[in-house]
C-alpha cells in the first residue's frame, strides 16, 4: 500500500521477474545470446533515475532478500505477479521459470501470484506440463513469450492452431489471464517483427480470456491502440511504458499515456514495474505524482484523476486476478468508462 496526501493506493505489480542471468547459467555455445539478452535489459535499466542503478554483476542475479526489500519494503507493492520466461535455448536452467518463482510462494503467501507459461511448439508434452503447473501453483495466468527460440523455430503466433489448443486447455484449467509479450519479435523474420495483428483475432476468438499486452506492444503502440479499441478483453500492460519513458523522456511518457488513456481507457491499463529491469519504488511514486502537462499540446488528452491512478496501479489487476482489496483501498463506486463507439469505424 502506498499513501500520499491522505490517499491510499493498493498496488499490484502485474509484471515482475526474478531471473537468473548469471554466467553459470549461460548455456554452453550460446553465451553470446545469453549475454546479448541480459545486456539488452541492462541497457533498459539505464533509463531509470541514476540513483536506482545497479552494477552489472548484481544485475545478473538478485537474491530473494533483494526482491523482498525492493518490492514490498521499499517498493510499496501489495501483490506482485511473477511472469515466467524460460529462454532455455540460452539459459541452462531457464531464465525465470515457474519453479524458480514458485520457491518464493511459501514464504510470501498472498503477496505473490506466480504465472505459468506455455509454448505451443512443445506439443503434448507441453500440455501435460501446463496441466501439472496449473495444479501445483493454482495458476490464474500465463506469460506467452512469442519470440522465444525453440529448436530451429524463432517464435510463434497467437493465431497458430497449436496456440489455440493450449489456450483452450488453459481455460479449462482455470487460467484466464494471458500476458503476451509483444516487444520486438524476430520470427518470421520478414513479417512478425512488428505485427500485433495476431492479438486481434486471438482475443476475438477467446472471449473467456483476458489478454494483457505487455509494454502496450511498444514498438507498435499505434497498432495496439487501434486494435484494443475494438477488443474489450485486451488490456495495456504498462511495463516498459512507465519504466522506459517516465524518467528518461517525460514528455513522451505524457504523450504515450495520453494516447493510451484516450484509446484504451483507464479501466484497461495495468501497472507493471518489470522488476528486475527496474525497481518499483520510483515508478509507483512517480505515477501517483504524475499529471498530464499543463501545455496546449496536451490539452485534448484525458486527465489523470486519483481514481485513474488507483485503477491503473492496482485495482484493475486485482479485478483480473480476483485479489481481495481491503475496503478502505477500493473506489467508492465502480464506474467503468470505456472509450466510445465513435472510435471504431462503422
Amino acid at each position: 500500500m502506498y499513501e500520499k496526501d491522505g490517499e491510499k493506493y493498493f498496488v499490484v505489480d502485474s509484471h515482475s521477474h526474478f531471473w537468473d542471468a548469471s554466467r553459470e547459467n549461460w548455456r554452453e555455445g550460446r553465451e553470446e545470446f545469453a549475454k546479448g539478452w541480459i545486456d539488452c535489459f541492462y541497457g533498459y535499466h539505464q533509463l531509470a533515475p541514476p540513483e536506482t542503478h545497479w552494477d552489472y554483476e548484481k544485475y545478473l542475479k538478485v537474491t530473494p532478500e533483494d526482491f523482498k526489500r525492493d518490492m514490498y519494503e521499499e517498493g510499496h507493492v501489495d501483490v506482485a505477479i511473477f511472469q515466467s520466461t524460460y529462454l532455455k535455448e540460452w539459459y541452462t536452467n531457464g531464465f525465470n521459470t515457474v519453479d524458480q518463482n514458485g520457491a518464493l510462494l511459501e514464504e510470501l503467501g498472498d503477496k505473490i501470484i506466480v504465472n505459468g507459461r506455455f509454448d505451443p511448439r512443445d506439443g503434448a508434452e507441453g500440455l501435460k506440463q501446463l496441466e501439472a503447473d496449473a495444479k501445483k501453483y493454482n495458476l490464474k495466468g500465463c506469460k506467452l513469450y512469442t519470440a522465444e527460440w525453440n529448436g530451429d523455430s524463432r517464435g510463434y503466433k497467437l493465431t497458430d492452431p497449436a496456440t489455440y489448443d493450449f489456450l483452450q486447455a488453459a481455460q479449462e484449467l482455470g487460467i484466464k489471464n494471458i500476458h503476451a509479450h509483444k516487444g520486438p519479435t524476430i520470427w518470421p523474420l520478414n513479417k512478425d517483427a512488428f505485427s500485433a495483428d495476431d492479438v486481434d483475432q486471438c482475443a476475438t476468438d477467446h472471449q473467456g480470456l483476458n489478454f494483457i499486452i505487455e509494454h502496450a506492444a511498444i514498438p507498435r503502440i499505434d497498432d495496439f491502440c487501434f486494435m484494443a479499441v475494438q477488443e474489450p478483453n485486451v488490456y495495456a500492460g504498462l511495463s516498459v511504458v512507465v519504466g522506459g519513458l517516465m524518467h528518461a523522456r517525460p514528455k513522451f511518457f505524457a504523450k504515450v499515456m495520453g494516447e493510451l488513456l484516450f484509446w484504451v481507457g483507464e479501466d484497461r491499463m495495468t501497472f507493471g514495474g518489470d522488476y528486475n529491469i527496474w525497481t518499483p519504488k520510483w515508478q509507483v511514486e512517480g505515477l501517483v505524482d504524475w499529471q498530464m502537462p499543463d501545455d496546449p499540446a496536451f490539452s485534448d488528452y484525458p486527465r489523470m484523476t486519483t481514481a485513474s491512478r488507483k485503477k491503473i496501479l492496482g485495482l484493475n489487476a486485482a479485478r483480473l486476478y480476483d485479489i481481495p482489496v481491503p475496503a478502505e483501498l477500493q473506489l467508492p463506486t465502480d464506474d467503468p468508462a470505456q472509450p466510445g463507439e465513435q472510435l471504431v469505424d462503422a
Partner: protein
Amino acid sequence: MTATVDGVWQALETVMDPELDEPITDLAFVESHTVSDDGVATVVLRLPTFFCAPNFAFLMVADAYDAVMEVDGVRHAVVTLQENQTADAINKGVAAQAGFVKAFEGEATAELDELRTEFLSKAAIAGQDRVAQPLVDDGAHPDELAAMVLGDVPPSVDLDRLRDRRRKIGLPAGDDAPLLMHPDGSRVTTAQVPLHLRRARLRRVGIEANGHICRDIMQAKLAVGAP
C-alpha cells in the same frame, strides 16, 4: 575522382531506419566510415541492442551498401553490422548481394519491400499530424482542412518530408494533392477529420516514442561501455 569521407557520410545520411523514420546518421547507428585512396569504402554499423530485429537491420545494411556504392569514386563497399544476433548472416548476405530470403535461407519467406512500404505508409500518416497540427493550432476548421491541398501549406521541413514519404509509396505528393489522405490515397472527408487527426497523431507518437527509446538505449550503451 577520389571519393571522400564526407561523400560517404552524406550518402549514409540518406539511409533511414525504416521503423523509426529517421536517418541512421542521426541515430548514432554509424560506428565508423572510411574510404581508401583506391576507392574502397568501409562502413561499420551498430544498433542499440543485440536483439534488434534482423529484418530492419538487413534493410539498413543493404541500403547503406547501395547508398555508398553510388558515391563518386567508390569502387567497392564493405558495409558490416557489429554485435547483432544475426550480424553474420546479414553481413554475408549483403556482401554477396544475395537478398534477404537468401541470407536467411529457411527462415524468411519474402523480401522486405512490403515491410518497407508498411512503415513508409505509417510515416506518411504521421507526417500529416506534423504538417496539420500547426494549422489546427491556428484555428483551421475541419472543413478547411479537408479541402486543403499541399500547395496551400506554408513550406517546411515537415512538408518536404511528407511529400517524400508519399512519393516513395506512390501516393500523390504534388501541390494539388490533398493534405489529409487515407493510407489508400483517398481524400479525408470533413466528418472524418477529427478522428483522422487523432490517428495521425497516434502514429506519430508511436514512431517518435520508439525513436527516443532507441536513442536513450544507444546513449546508455555508449556511456556504460560493453559490460
